[in-house]
């Protein structure tokens, strides 16, 4: 069965590149460009993996994650966080908020694909 990835990313060019890559890797991708839309979609569509940018309009990635982890429907949803801030404090905040993996921009495409595959497989177990 095709695995579904929800991509929460407000930078359209990055979203386009990542969608292309993930589709080529065999995933079905839907994109949301702000935090509120991403939260709604994560709760209603229950994707297999959520790729969540930290800096999103309306609601930050951390805030989205906090809501998700407080909701039974998404408390175990595998989440990969993306940020351009690679400082240790950001990494700690992401992991404390409940992210499973954390990748900083600029990233290598293979990093993202490997991480999503890993999370999708772990989620299926």
């Amino acid at each position: 069965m095709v695995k579904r990835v929800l991509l929460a990313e407000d930078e359209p060019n990055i979203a386009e590149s990542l969608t292309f890559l993930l589709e080529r890797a065999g995933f079905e991708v839907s994109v949301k460009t702000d935090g509120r839309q991403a939260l709604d979609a994560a709760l209603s569509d229950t994707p297999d993996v959520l790729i969540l940018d930290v800096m999103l309009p309306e609601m930050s990635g951390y805030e989205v994650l906090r809501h998700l982890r407080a909701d039974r429907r998404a408390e175990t949803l595998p989440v990969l966080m993306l940020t351009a801030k690679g400082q240790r404090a950001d990494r700690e905040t992401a992991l404390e908020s409940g992210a499973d993996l954390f990748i900083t921009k600029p990233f290598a495409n293979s990093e993202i694909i490997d991480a999503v595959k890993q999370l999708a497989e772990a989620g299926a177990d």
Partner: protein
Amino acid sequence: MHRSIVGARIRQRRRALGLKQAELAQRIRISPSYMNLIELNKRRIAGSLLRRIADALSMPLEELDGVSERRLFETLSGLANHPSFRTLGAEVERASELIGRFPAWAKGLGELAQSEQEATLRVQLLSDRLSNDPYLSETLHRMLTRIAAVRSTTEILNEYADMSDERRDRFNRIVHEEIQSLSEVGEALTAYLDRAEDSERVLTPVDEVEAMFDARDKQFVEIETAAALLAPSLNDVHSASLRSKAKELAEERLGSVIDDLIEREPSIKTAAAAGRARRALLDYAVGAIVMPMDAFARHAADTKYDLELLADVFSAEFHAVCHRLTALPRAGSTPRFGYFCANAAGTIIEMMGLDGFTAQRYAAACPLWVLFSAQQSPETVIRQRVLFPSGERFVFVARARHVGPSGFGRPRNYRTDMLVMKEADAHQTVYAPEPSAIVEEVGPGCRICPRTMCQHRVEDPLSE
């Protein structure tokens, strides 16, 4: 070394001005015999008396009490420990001899050492600014985002030879667009750094004083210790005159502790900052006398950090209680507090930051903070539950107070004090928001705020 020359200096200067000993004594309101003992170095003087004498003789305090020589001695001793001097075997113990016998050479050497130290400090400050300035941090974030898009897209163009021409053209356009944006961010960043280099000083006096408070984690143990000994002398003082008595005590008894502290403090480099630091530390000392830390910390926890109750318990002013809360020692789960004060023009005139709380340092803060709206309801404590774009939640507690003379027909001028705490910490306080309380979306200040659709925005973010 310097104490023994104070009396001689006073006498020398007094005579140069043609003043009689009794005249000088009268001007500074002490007896002529006491003046005589001072001039004979038989009485040690410091603090406000020394200041009054310096004023009466129209000479800088540091010239009078020998602090200049002491500073020079310390500078030269420090220089002797510099790696390049240490290898020469410079004799530290003979620094005072150098000052005595070759004062001009000693002074010149001291100035060179100081200028080298300032240059090093400036490099450290610029480096610190690169890692902490929210403006730069935000710009670097945008830059990394653009680079991420370019990197990802070019990798796709290289690795997926089988894509359609239409798709290839689209990705080529993305690379072009992103490189264009990247160059715009780069130009804006260069312009910003040029402006920073053009400015004469890296720090303002306000920054220097804040740096001093930050370096001490907002606590000054030497003042706390001395103040705790003075606190019992307020026991019989009526609450109405408590503050003025504490102020008097702070000036008389802690003035020299404060002067020594400022003198040793490396972040205080200018006379303007030294004056500001003195006022800030005198306020701190008054707070420490009126609200001794042990009792204050206990009452703070008992009242759940209720600012008004604490102000009543200690007969202190609201803003003094705010200050005192920022000085609470770090212990276990004790909440941490930040403090801001703004005038009627919305200018932040005092800021004591909080770990993890980003405020725009070099431009106006977010107009949505209750700090700015509290003046519409003076003397009322207002709470605001806020969400920052980073996802962090804080609770603000603000109250506007009347400043200046009262009276019918007089203008009413206000200042607002605002206490800041993390929402997680607020749960230990009376200001804990109910789960249903409105969460207001605010930011650190327009220039670094990513809320592009905010209707209160007055300035574009740097690279939009």
